[in-house]
């Protein structure tokens, strides 16, 4: 396997919540190879966004990283100085968010916002900046370039705003694009367009991507590898096809079963209960209170993540289908 572009190991994040601290991420491991698209999925509140924010050191107090490492292009991000991490943001790793319109500055036109980024990152001004801005608009398939560059965010549709956000992100030529629920607020046809755009960017620019989503359809459509998160830890990671064909962790299985499907009765009770409060994490495996096959062991000890097949990690004492004898 090629050396990963991004390698997160044992990332732990705590939020100060007097009298103690709430552990929101527990030893998260995550790899993204160059030009690879990885999906990070899980229910709301399981730590997907916190993982992305922590990677870029964008966590605000009371949240803080208390352990683990984040290596990106052979540099350790958790110990970089503030000035150095600023150079990684945007240039190395760019991030786009769920609310595309609110993520753009409301009083500047798209052209002005692109101009700010181009002037700062590439020192481009005037005609050359204009040419590069038009090139970026073409790259993200924003049709009428002249109109778009002169438009304020409120004059554009949600899909166009997200394309503009992607153009802004691409302006810094990042190696990795982190998309935090970037298609969630868009309607399905626009969602698909954005996903197709992201795929084309991967193919043409070799842009690696980390797609954070709770939409398994998005993952199936766009990702080569998937990491499933639950209660602040990665419970299963696998190549997308294998994960969808044969999920091993009970949580993944339930998550897949919970997808609405035409013709099937709604699976309302697919996963009983909800994600645990980080201040009151269950003992042992954090999923055991909601797991249909929990054993006494699950209550008592915490399973480690194990590679049971090449590229397939699972954190469960009783993964299914059981690949031979297992402790």
């Amino acid at each position, binding site marked *: 396997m090629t050396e990963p572009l991004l390698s997160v190991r044992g990332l732990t994040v705590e939020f100060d919540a007097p009298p103690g601290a709430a552990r929101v991420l527990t030893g998260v491991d995550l790899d993204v190879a160059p030009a690879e698209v990885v999906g990070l999925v899980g229910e709301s509140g399981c730590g997907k966004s916190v993982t992305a924010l922590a990677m870029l050191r964008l966590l605000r107090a009371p949240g803080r990283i208390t352990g683990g490492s984040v290596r990106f292009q052979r540099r350790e991000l958790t110990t970089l100085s503030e000035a150095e991490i600023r150079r990684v943001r945007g240039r190395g790793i*760019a*991030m*786009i968010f769920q609310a595309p319109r*609110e993520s753009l500055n409301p009083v500047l036109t798209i052209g002005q916002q692109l101009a700010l980024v181009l002037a*700062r990152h590439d020192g481009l001004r005037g005609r050359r900046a204009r040419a590069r801005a038009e090139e970026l608009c073409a790259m993200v398939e924003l049709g009428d370039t002249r109109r778009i560059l002169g438009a304020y965010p409120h004059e554009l549709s949600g899909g166009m705003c997200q394309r503009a956000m992607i153009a802004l992100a691409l302006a810094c030529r990042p190696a990795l694009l982190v998309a935090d629920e970037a298609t969630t607020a868009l309607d399905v046809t626009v969602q698909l367009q954005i996903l197709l755009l992201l795929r084309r960017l991967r193919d043409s620019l070799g842009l690696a991507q980390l797609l954070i989503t709770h939409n398994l359809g998005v993952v199936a459509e766009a990702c080569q590898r998937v990491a499933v998160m639950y209660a602040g830890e990665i419970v299963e990671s696998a190549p997308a096809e294998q994960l969808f064909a044969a999920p091993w962790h009970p949580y993944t299985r339930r998550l897949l079963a919970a997808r609405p499907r035409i013709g099937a009765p709604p699976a309302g009770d697919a996963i009983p209960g909800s994600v645990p409060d980080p201040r009151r994490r269950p003992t042992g495996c954090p999923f055991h209170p909601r797991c249909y096959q929990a054993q006494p062991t699950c209550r008592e000890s915490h399973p480690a993540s194990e590679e049971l097949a090449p590229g397939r990690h699972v954190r469960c004492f009783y993964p299914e289908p059981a690949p031979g004898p297992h402790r």
Partner: protein
Amino acid sequence: MTRKGDAVTLTGLAMTLGLVVLALLAPWIAPYDPYATDPARALRPPSAAHPFGTGVFGEDILARVIWGARLDLLIAAGAVGIALVLGGALGAGAGFLGGWSDEGIMRGMDVLQAFPNFILALGIAAALGPSVPNLVLAIALTNVPIYARLMRSQVLTQRTAPYALAAVGVGNPTARVLFVHLLPNTWSPILVQATLQSGWAILQAAGLSFIGLGVPVPTPEWGVMIGMGVQQVTAGQWWIAFFPGLAIMAAVIGLNLLGDGLQDWLDPRRK
């Protein structure tokens, strides 16, 4: 906003611009020297030669009202400008830094606001002595808390907006996020407030001058002029105090109408 609202705003704009033009062109359009006295023509009622009449020393009221526009608008602009810069900087700092700096700055503002506005200006003006720069300073200081509060609330709401996080996320340093992204989003309510406040500043300047704590007699300033004419009103010579009063009213109404409408005009969503 409706067409009627636009008409009202345009009226305010026309009144304000009219006064500004008068102020700028005062040396050329004023029919007499505002300081020229002529005992032979004292206390004349309005006539063709003196449309606003003449004062106790035979000075031309129209000329003095026109020159007064220059001085009063200048005082208002200076006072509001200083208050805006000082208050804006303090408020932005308080909102952005938070914590103890926020507490310190805003409690200081509370102290300033605890005094009735006019009384505070009166105290400052009295302590500094009557002159134009001191008058500007006195009015500016009483208005600082207004801008500090407004700016702080703006920065507090804008700094947590998604676009602010996005700006940090692409590698902008803190100061750049504040100046390039946050401040332009705070301008419109501040500008509206400044316009409205200019009207009040004129009123305050005239008020202080009227009671002798602002600009010294016989400067052509509206408040001073009312002060000089007030004893004559009972004797029937109403025009000496009336026309400068009218000018103050026009300035305050014009700036208020303009300020009310400006909010809508400044919103990029309305273009």
